[in-house]
Each structure stands twice: as C-alpha cells, then as structure tokens.
C-alpha cells in the first residue's frame, strides 16, 4: 500500500512515522520548510521530500500519478489541505483522501467542496469534553459522514419518559436505533427486552437531524 502524506509538522510526521513502523507500507512525506525537512530526512531518509505539496510538480515527484492508495493532507493550512485533496482526488483519481481541518470554522468549506473524511483535533477534543463532562443531554460521539449516520449518547434521567420501559415499547423515530446501555460501569447491547433505568447511559445511532425526535422519546421534552 502506498500512502502520500502532505505536511511534516507534529501531526504529519508522527503519522508517517507510525505508518512506516511495521514496514509493510510505502510512505512518502512532503515537507515545505527546509529546517523541518532536514530534521525529518535524518530520521526517515528517502521517505521525505522537500517542497510545497500544493505544487503539481512536487506532488508528481512524490508519485501522485501512480496514484497512491491514500493521500493524507495534514498541513497546518486548511486552504492547502483543501487544494491538495482536490488535486489528489480529481486530477489523479486517488481513491482515498483524508484531510486535516485546523480551524473548525473551515469545516463548511471542506463539506462544500466534497472533501471527506476530515479530521479535526478541536472537534475531537470538544466531543471528548462533552462525553466526559456533558453539558447537554445529548452528546455527539461520532459522525459517519459517508453513511449519513451519527452515534450519540444520552443519559436517562429520573422521570424521563423512557425510564422503566423496555426498548421494544419505545416509539423510536424512524432511522434511529439504540446500540447499548451502560449501567454501573458495565455495558450491554440494547435488545427489545432491555429495560431502561434512570442513570443509564444509552448509545444510539441515527440519521443527522433526528436528534430532537429521539430526545422527545427518551428524555423530557
């Protein structure tokens, strides 16, 4: 498998290093800054090349025309990651492109231009904080953009309409399903006969936009 990584900062360099560790993959890392490049070259040798990964001739030197199985656009500039992703997919037919979003406000641009999947440290951190210290009654854990589904977590309160009821008796919105119930630190898969108790943490999978309906069925209105 051939993987092309654009951007040799902390994210890109560690990503490339990890990919190279098991020796099964071919990896090329492109880094623009000479000081970073020289440091990386000492460690990763011929796996690093110097240049601007948004320049077509640099991408071609890195073998984009083969094309690679995966291109990861991981620079610290969102506009660069967007252009690398578009070039990789649309000019060279790279089957899998992953782009890093540095500023979460730019996510809309990636969505508009069809660049997916994206990874964002800020978004990941926010989801983690929400999970650990929920401020809302419904927490988004994972977005599956391609599948148009998302996984959310809800906490069943005392007095919630779902408390004391079995899963099969709930009038769940179409396009949603309960995955599991976590109680006293142990979780079990939610089946029809599973009864919901106050304090349960419930994982659900649903289509985006169905959150409010799910909230009405499980929690207070």
């Amino acid at each position, binding site marked *: 498998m051939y993987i092309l990584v654009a951007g040799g900062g902390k994210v890109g360099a560690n990503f490339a290093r990890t990919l190279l560790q098991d020796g099964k993959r071919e990896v090329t890392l492109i880094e623009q800054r000479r000081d970073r490049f020289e440091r990386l070259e000492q460690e990763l040798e011929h796996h690093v090349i110097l240049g601007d990964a948004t320049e077509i001739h640099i991408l071609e030197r890195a073998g984009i025309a083969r094309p690679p199985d995966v291109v990861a656009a991981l620079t610290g500039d969102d*506009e660069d990651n967007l252009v690398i992703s578009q070039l990789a997919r649309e000019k060279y037919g790279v089957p899998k492109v992953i782009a890093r979003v540095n500023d979460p406000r730019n996510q809309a*641009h990636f969505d508009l231009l069809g660049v997916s999947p994206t990874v964002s440290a800020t978004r990941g951190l926010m989801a983690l904080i929400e999970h650990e210290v929920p401020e809302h009654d419904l927490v988004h854990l994972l977005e599956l953009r391609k599948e148009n589904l998302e996984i959310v977590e809800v906490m069943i309160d005392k007095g919630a309409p779902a408390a004391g009821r079995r899963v099969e008796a709930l009038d769940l919105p179409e396009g949603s399903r309960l995955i599991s119930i976590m109680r006293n630190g142990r979780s079990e898969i939610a089946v029809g006969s599973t009864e919901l108790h106050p304090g349960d943490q419930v994982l659900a999978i649903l289509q985006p936009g169905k959150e409010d309906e799910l909230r009405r069925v499980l929690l207070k209105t």
Partner: protein
Amino acid sequence: MNALVIGCGRVGSSIALQLDREGWEVTAVDEKEEALTRLGDHWSGGFVLGHGMDIEVLREAGIEEADAVVVATDGDNTNIVIGQVAQQRFDNQCVVVRLLDPARAEFYRQRGLRTVCPTSVAIEVLLDAVRACEIRPAEAATT
C-alpha cells in the same frame, strides 16, 4: 452594480479603485488594516477588515448582493478556496480569481473557475519580446 474585491494589495486595490471610477459600488476586504491606505484618502466605497475564508466576513462585505467577486489575496490556495466558496456556496456567476501558479490556474479553469494567471501572461509577453529580437538579426542577414 456591486463588486466585492477580496485581497486589497497592489492588484486588488487597483482593481477596486478602477471599478469605483467606472461607477461600481465596491467593497474591499483585507485582513490588514493598512490595506485601506492603498485605496487613498478619498475612498468612499466599503472596506471590511477580516479574512476572506471567513463566511461571516464575506456576508458582512455583501457577497450575497455582489454582481462580481474578484479574489486577489497573496495566497493562491486561499484564492482557490474563496473563489469556489463564492461560486458554489453563494452562487455568484461572476467570480474572477488571480492565481500565480500556471498549473493550478489551468486545473481550476478546467473545473469551471474563472482564473487569471499573471505568470502565464508575463511568460507570453517575455517570449514575444525575445522573438521580436530574433527577427531583427535574421532580417539583417537576408538583406
């Protein structure tokens, strides 16, 4: 007619001033306040301080009412993204994007973005100048 000029450097500011003289309602956008000085003391058009990648800045500058959008910041990739956002998100029919790299200019031109590449223009002009020199010695030899 309303025009939005994003990136108010040497190129952007000259375009803004010229369009203003031709009777357009012009709003310029730049992330540096000093850019406003390029428009001169008598600038009566709009100026919005902010980055062109920021949707709110574009809205404030009136992208939804603009008849034309000129994108001329100093970053090619920034211009590519802003140009596509103006065209695809705000459905603007007249988006012109300045790109210095001929290769990217060609790729995005093929994808329907109106790109202008000063580098390609300069190459053509320089080549023509060189060819003009070539003709003269040849002409001299035949006479």
